[in-house]
Structure formats: structure tokens, C-alpha cells
């Protein structure tokens, strides 16, 4: 019997990155602007996307990939707004990966779309490791998760393009300090734009929509 060392040298993460790259090329070719919306369950991702759809759907053609362990529930919320929606069931997985997005995009006529929202599965850890081919990564964190949430999950704030601190209207009720959360995000990523939002504060929602529009003009 012969003992033998075989060089494998395969990066398991790279396979996803390569697929994400081909997704990105496809999106660019079709002039689609894609946003990956990441954040915990209950952070308010779905509501923020709904607000954006309502504000932008008359001027832009929009589609949504709703990723979740069981995705149909959020998907039907988007469908009600009259936009093309694909439910991406991750089954037991904790995040969307480039393969799932590639498959979901096969069900969307990309030539007929200007904006693609990708609602990622609810957590702040796993989506960090998986690029999808998006143009912009958005992390949503709500005050109800506790104002130490940012420092507990540093990498998602390091790798995102926009950070949203949501539900600031209930800060007092949940004993959280949104300005601490903002300062923690700045500490981790000094150049990242940060929005403090609340569904009850129209001005803050308008800023979120303006942020999206800044990429479209």
C-alpha cells in the first residue's frame, strides 16, 4: 500500500464568487441595478423594499427576489404591489448564494427590468460570505435587536455599501441608543452612508428612496 499526498488546491468559496461575477455581468448587460438587502428577521427589510416599490414603480420597472427559508409569505406581499416576484426558497440554508440568484433570475425577463431587489435571508452572519452579483449591498439593523448588535457583527458593516438603522421611533421602548449604533457603524466603516429610518417618519423613508435613485440617474 502506498501513502500519497494529492494536491487539491480548490477554494470552495471561490466557486460562489465566480458565479456571482457572471450574475453581475448578466445584470450589467441588461442594465439592471441590483440591491442585496441583508438584515435580521424582523429588522424591516420587507417594509423598506415595499416603500421603495411604491415610490418607484411608476418610473422604473422593478422585480424582487424574495429569499427565505420559506419565501412565499414575503413574496406575496411584493406581488400585491404588482411587481414581478420570484420566491427563492433556501430550504435549510441560512443565506442566498449566487447559484440561487442565478436560478431565480432565469424566471425574470431582465431586459424588461430596471431595478432588482434581492431580499436576503434574515441574519447578519452568513450573507457576508456570499456575494450574489449585486451592485449594492445594504445592511438593515433595527434598534429592537439591541444597540450592541453592530459590534457583534462587524464584518457585515465592513462589507456593505449602505447601512440602515431602522425602527428608531421605538428606541426608547426597547432601551436602545440609535446614535450609539450609528457611531459603531462609523467606527467599523468610516465611509459608509448611514440612514436612520422609521416607517412612521416619511422624511426618513424618502431619504432611503433618494439613495436608490442616486444610482439610477
Amino acid at each position, binding site marked *: 500500500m502506498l501513502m500519497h*499526498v494529492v494536491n487539491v488546491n480548490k*477554494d*470552495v468559496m471561490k466557486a460562489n464568487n465566480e458565479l456571482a461575477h457572471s450574475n453581475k455581468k448578466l445584470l450589467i448587460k441588461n442594465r439592471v441595478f441590483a440591491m442585496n438587502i441583508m438584515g435580521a428577521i424582523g429588522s424591516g427589510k420587507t417594509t423598506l423594499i415595499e416603500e421603495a416599490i411604491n415610490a418607484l414603480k411608476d418610473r422604473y420597472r422593478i422585480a424582487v427576489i424574495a429569499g427565505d427559508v420559506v419565501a412565499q409569505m414575503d413574496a406575496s406581499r411584493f406581488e400585491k404591489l404588482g411587481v414581478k416576484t420570484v420566491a427563492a426558497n433556501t430550504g435549510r*440554508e441560512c443565506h442566498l448564494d449566487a447559484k440561487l440568484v442565478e436560478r431565480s433570475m432565469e424566471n425574470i425577463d431582465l431586459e424588461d427590468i430596471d431595478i432588482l431587489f434581492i431580499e436576503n435571508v434574515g441574519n447578519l*452572519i*452568513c450573507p457576508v*460570505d456570499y456575494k450574489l452579483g449585486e451592485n449594492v449591498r445594504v445592511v438593515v439593523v433595527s434598534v429592537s435587536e439591541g444597540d450592541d448588535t453592530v459590534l457583534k457583527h*462587524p464584518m457585515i458593516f*465592513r462589507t456593505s455599501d449602505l447601512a440602515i438603522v431602522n425602527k428608531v421611533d421605538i428606541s426608547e421602548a426597547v432601551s436602545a441608543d440609535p446614535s450609539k449604533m450609528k457611531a459603531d457603524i462609523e467606527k*467599523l466603516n468610516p465611509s459608509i452612508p448611514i440612514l436612520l429610518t422609521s416607517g412612521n417618519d416619511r422624511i426618513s423613508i424618502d431619504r432611503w428612496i433618494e439613495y436608490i435613485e442616486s444610482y439610477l440617474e
Partner: protein
Amino acid sequence: MHEYSLACEIFETVIATADQNKASAVNSITLEIGRLTHVNPDQLLFCLDVLSGDSIAEGAKVNVNFVSPCGECECGYKRDSGVPDNACCDDQQSLYEYALMTCPVCGKLLQLVGGNELIIQTIDIDI
């Protein structure tokens, strides 16, 4: 928790490589895990162990080498991260340390390069 799907991918590659080389057994697998990934090594090893049961890789020893990111600054400063490779592999703790590393020259946050890999380096087989 995405350790299970990663373990599946590792296992499939290991078995395919072993088959290509007409192996009768896989004695060990050597992995390189970047410290910036959110992979929990204990969970990954557990999943690999479960998957390898009843295969030619059953009981294979899994060696893990951790890879630290390199820190770079706009001012030109560059060096390997100051966190030693044998530092505690507690996920959150070390991520936090890396995420807040600043440049000793100008004080800005260091850009982290590398540390995102999960590489199957080698397998040791019986032929």
C-alpha cells in the same frame, strides 16, 4: 449555519479526487480557512465527520490551517495582521479584533485583504 453545505462541497471534492487517484482510503484532509469567513471550524469538522461515515474517507483526520488577512492602509502601510494565527479561533472575538485594526502610522482603519478563503489544500490517500 452554512457549514453543512460547505462540508458537502468539501466531501464531494475529496471523494472525487480520491477516486481519480484510485485511492482505497483517505487518511487525512488539509484545509485552509480564512479568519474573515464566518465558518465555524468545529461545526465544519463535525459535518465532515458525519458525511464521511461509510465512505473511503471515514475517520480521516482533518488538519486546519488558519489564514489571517493582510492589513493595508491608504498611506501605504502594509503588513500581515497583528493577530497571531494560533490566536483563539472563537469566531466573533477574532472577527471583532480584525474589523477594528487601525494603521499604526496614520490611525485609519486597515483595509483587510484576503482571509476569505476556504481551501481544500491536500488529501493524504492510500493507493
